[in-house]
């Protein structure tokens, strides 16, 4: 759907009305995943592997089943065969089949009348394991003699000779890279390492499943996409999709980690077996061990530059580790690496290797932060060595409308140059720095996504409007959607209530991911509103007895147009709604679409960092985010996304990491030793929103949720490197690592 041609003055877009979920969240009325209860409900608990890699010889559940109060025990045998290998990986991740592949991998589930009994029952399940050698690090996993996670599977697409744990490879580019390097005045080549991080949402996974003896089931859960939960669970339970209704709860953070299932199929299987509702709530320990960490990486980057800052060639080799199952995230990373640059010669390669770690789940711009970080760090080093301004160099090489992107396509209107210019002109960029302080710059990129979307909008007889959408609200989308409906209909924001419906109440919706919701659901809402407007105009034409084409919609009123202009008093939406039952019945609009035209998004971050030279302690002194939002519907939410992404990226850069022992066990499965930033660690994150309209949306909206986590890794790393006068090349830059580099 294209940008509206007629230029409009927005009345509601760009304002900052109250968030519709605010009162519920601060008063505790909001219902999160763990808040749902049902009569006769049982508590579900999951037994998890103590080993990083082991064959399951046998599972004896008889003692657990015999325990008073235990109503069901399930293992992999209680699930159907999934419909394809990708779906089967999802199921095997929820319940180990044959082998456990990582510390914390589920092996059995129990439902009992109390948590204490369920816990006791877990202890009574006897699992006999044959412990196998394990591998958790990238370089170990690609060795010829590495333990192989899936020896029986044949990852056919792979070139001859690739290590048995490699599941995906990628290789693309354009231009003559060797000639490009030959033309460079300076070439910098470095290897960068990042560690796995977790999305760190505050709400643990939680669900309530209830299946009747007739096979009809309901599932309430905390998810970013309940249609996807329905599809996966129906597949794993061998059910028809129509037999399962899924309702998404309010969500306490997802960041990509709630785009798949972990406990939901287990709760359904337990409920089916027990004949009672079963609730499962993960502990934080389980969240860390068995739900979505992101990837770890080891990346070589080589970039050549002329004395005046022109990049002559770029090369990257990305190695991603995404846990125990195949993952294509490497493709997204490889495509993002050089996306911000207009290059004549660029070559990107990479592979994904499987290890004995939990299966990677999407995390905000999956694959991009770890790919952009090494490129932006090498560009920074080239700028330093050549005495060039890092923003000028980026401007000189920036991708623009018409640039052939490093990953193939040609960009439409994009906001990178405008964003770089805004950063350069901002007072932050010219503010003086003190001793032991450094300023880091980084650009970042994300594709954004549109996808399958259904929206329905209906008029109430008092002139208010109900909007029904199917995407859990993880970043304020209910407010933005109400605003877009209000803008289009010409009624106050307060007259609209937007809700997230269950899977039976609305057509299919893709998961809330890819920064797609404000873009795609917004677009569908505008179209649904336009459909309702069309009906309203037809009704009014009937009353006035004129041609429907002779009625226009303006600022919430139907007005006679053309030769009839001024002949009738305009009718408001409320007036039309009040008599709808006399003019033909209820008035509603709906729209279903597979939206494209999401429009890529760029951001630029500035980070001032101070390093204590005696301890390696870092302090983020000042941080500013510049980003193109296309059109900021509700600027506070856009700023919230920019700030939140920056903070998560800062955590990734400075302290967050999955730490494994020699035994392959995760050592820091809790917020004490998995260190996300706390409020006092951070300065206020300043934001500057740019608005370069997206040609693919009627109001020019672009997704903004993911791009802001892409630049911080390099922005902070470049800031630290400049502060200490030495180049950091591994994350997280925890104090021991920094002190070691300082001391040389």
């Amino acid at each position, binding site marked *: 759907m294209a940008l509206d041609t007629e230029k409009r003055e927005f009345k509601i877009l760009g304002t900052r009305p109250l968030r519709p979920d605010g009162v519920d969240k601060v008063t505790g009325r909001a219902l999160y995943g763990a808040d749902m209860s049902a009569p006769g409900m049982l508590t579900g608990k999951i037994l998890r592997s103590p080993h990083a890699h082991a064959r399951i010889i046998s599972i004896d559940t008889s003692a657990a089943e015999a325990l008073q109060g235990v109503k069901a025990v399930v293992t992999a045998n209680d699930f159907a065969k999934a419909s394809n290998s990708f779906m089967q990986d999802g199921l095997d991740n929820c319940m180990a089949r044959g082998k456990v592949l990582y510390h914390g991998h589920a092996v059995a589930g129990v439902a009992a009348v109390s948590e204490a009994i369920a816990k006791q029952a877990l202890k009574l399940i006897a699992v006999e394991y044959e412990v196998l050698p394990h591998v958790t690090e990238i370089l170990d996993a690609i060795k010829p003699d590495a333990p192989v996670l899936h020896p029986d599977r044949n990852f056919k697409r792979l070139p001859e000779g690739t290590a048995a744990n490699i599941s995906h490879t990628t290789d693309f580019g354009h231009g003559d890279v060797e000639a490009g390097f030959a033309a460079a005045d300076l070439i910098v080549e470095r290897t960068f390492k990042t560690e796995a991080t977790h999305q760190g949402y505050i709400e643990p996974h939680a669900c309530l499943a209830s299946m009747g003896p007739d096979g009809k089931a309901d599932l309430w859960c905390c998810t970013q996409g309940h249609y996807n939960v329905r599809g996966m669970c129906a597949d794993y339970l061998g059910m028809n999709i129509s037999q399962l209704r899924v309702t998404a709860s309010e969500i306490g953070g997802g960041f990509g980690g709630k785009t798949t299932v972990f406990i939901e199929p287990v709760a359904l299987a337990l409920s089916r077996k027990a004949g009672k509702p079963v609730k499962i709530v993960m502990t934080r*320990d389980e969240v860390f061990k068995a739900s979505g960490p992101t990837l770890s990486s080891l990346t070589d980057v080589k970039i050549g530059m002329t004395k005046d800052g022109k990049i002559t060639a770029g090369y990257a080799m990305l190695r991603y580790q995404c846990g125990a199952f195949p993952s294509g995230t490497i493709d997204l990373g490889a495509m993002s690496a050089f996306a911000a640059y207009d290059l004549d010669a660029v070559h990107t390669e990479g592979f994904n290797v499987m290890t004995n770690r939990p299966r990677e789940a999407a995390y905000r711009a999956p694959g991009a932060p770890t790919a952009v970080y090494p490129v932006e760090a090498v560009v920074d080093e080239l700028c330093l060595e050549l005495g060039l301004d890092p923003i000028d160099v980026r401007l000189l090489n920036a991708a623009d409308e018409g640039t052939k992107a490093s990953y193939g396509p040609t960009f439409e209107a994009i906001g990178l140059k405008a964003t770089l210019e805004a950063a350069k002109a901002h007072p932050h960029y010219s503010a003086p720095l003190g001793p032991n302080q450094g300023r880091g710059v980084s650009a970042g990129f994300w594709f954004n996504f549109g996808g399958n979307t259904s929206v329905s909008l209906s008029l109430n007889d008092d002139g208010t409007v109900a909007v029904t959408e199917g995407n859990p609200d993880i970043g304020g989308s209910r407010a933005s959607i109400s605003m877009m409906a209000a803008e289009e209909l010409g009624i106050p924001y307060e007259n609209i209530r937007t809700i997230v419906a269950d899977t039976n109440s609305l057509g299919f919706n893709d998961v809330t991911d890819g920064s797609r919701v404000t873009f795609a659901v917004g677009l569908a809402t505008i179209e649904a509103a336009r459909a309702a407007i069309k009906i309203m105009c037809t009704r009014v034409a009937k009353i006035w007895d004129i041609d429907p084409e002779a009625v226009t919609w303006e600022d919430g009123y139907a007005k006679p147009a053309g030769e009839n202009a001024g002949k009738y008093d305009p009718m408001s939406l409320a007036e039309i709604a009040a008599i709808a039952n006399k003019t033909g019945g209820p008035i509603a609009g709906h729209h279903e679409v597979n939206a494209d035209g999401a429009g890529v998004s760029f951001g630029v971050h500035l980070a001032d960092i101070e390093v204590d030279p*005696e*301890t*390696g*302690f870092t302090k983020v002194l000042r941080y500013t985010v510049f980003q193109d939002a296309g059109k900021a519907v509700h600027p506070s939410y856009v700023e919230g996304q920019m700030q939140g992404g920056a903070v998560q990226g800062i955590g990734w850069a*400075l*302290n967050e990491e999955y*730490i494994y022992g020699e035994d392959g066990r995760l*050592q*820091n499965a809790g917020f*004490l*030793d998995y*260190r996300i*930033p*706390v409020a*006092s*660690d951070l300065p206020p994150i300043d934001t500057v929103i740019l608005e370069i309209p997206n040609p693919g949306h009627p109001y020019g909206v672009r997704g903004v949720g993911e791009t802001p986590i892409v630049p911080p890794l390099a922005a902070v790393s470049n800031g630290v490197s400049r502060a200490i006068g030495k180049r950091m090349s591994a994350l997280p830059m*925890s*104090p*021991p690592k920094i*002190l*070691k580099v300082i001391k040389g």
Partner: protein
Amino acid sequence: MRFEAPKTTELAVALLAQETGTARVLAGGTDLLVQMKMDMITPDLVVDIKHIDGMHDITPEDGGFRIGAAVSGAALGEHAGVCALWPGVVEALELIGSTQVQGRATMAGNLCNASPAGDSVPAMAAAGAVARIAGPDGTRDCPVADVPVGPGKTSLAKGEFITSILLPSRPDNASDAYLRFIPRTEMDIAVASAGVSLEFDAAGTCTAAAVILGAVGPTILTADASCLVGTKLEDAALEKLAACCSATATPIDDKRGTTEFRKDVVGVLAKRAAKIAQTRAGAKS
């Protein structure tokens, strides 16, 4: 599990002494409840000492203060007398946790949890604090430094518990300070720490020094701080102190920090804490 909340010290001692299974004292519960929730310990008996008379009192004694075993960080932090006398001990206790945790956490709990990283312990030890212990054989006093004997282990016998901790008096021109290193700014466990208590003469020369290190050994460690005595904490003396602390430290290499890092940083902390104590003491440098 049995839960008891006796009103007297005698009853508490009797309950603890008679329990045949595992018994635990509950003060603020900010360690105990977490450990129970994580299935690290499953006591058969929990004895809450917060209802015993005097446990919440802060009482002047011989120029110092006797702190009841249930006095929370928040309560101690509001006591002007203690803050003026032992600012380093108060700042160490106040570093623990968040506002919520401060409303509960106690010094005696921090001490008896016997983590080498407990924040108030090096500061109390540097201050020469003395624990009063009630037990089946009556009451005894024990220097705080001798209570922890290893990670999670104390020298308390069965049936014994701490009823109060005495922070002693101190001369003029003296003060203390505590610093810890954490990678963040709060809500973390010390990677290395140092409690420093210094006395000066009227001319500003250091006459006595105690430096206690935390999180760099199985228990707190006493560093030889004699290099400060007779100096005005000039750079050379401070560098000597830092080197001595680094040499004294015997830290482990773990997820919170490397051996090398902890040894380095503990020296830096000691010298910085010494400067703070010097300023607080009003000593001329």
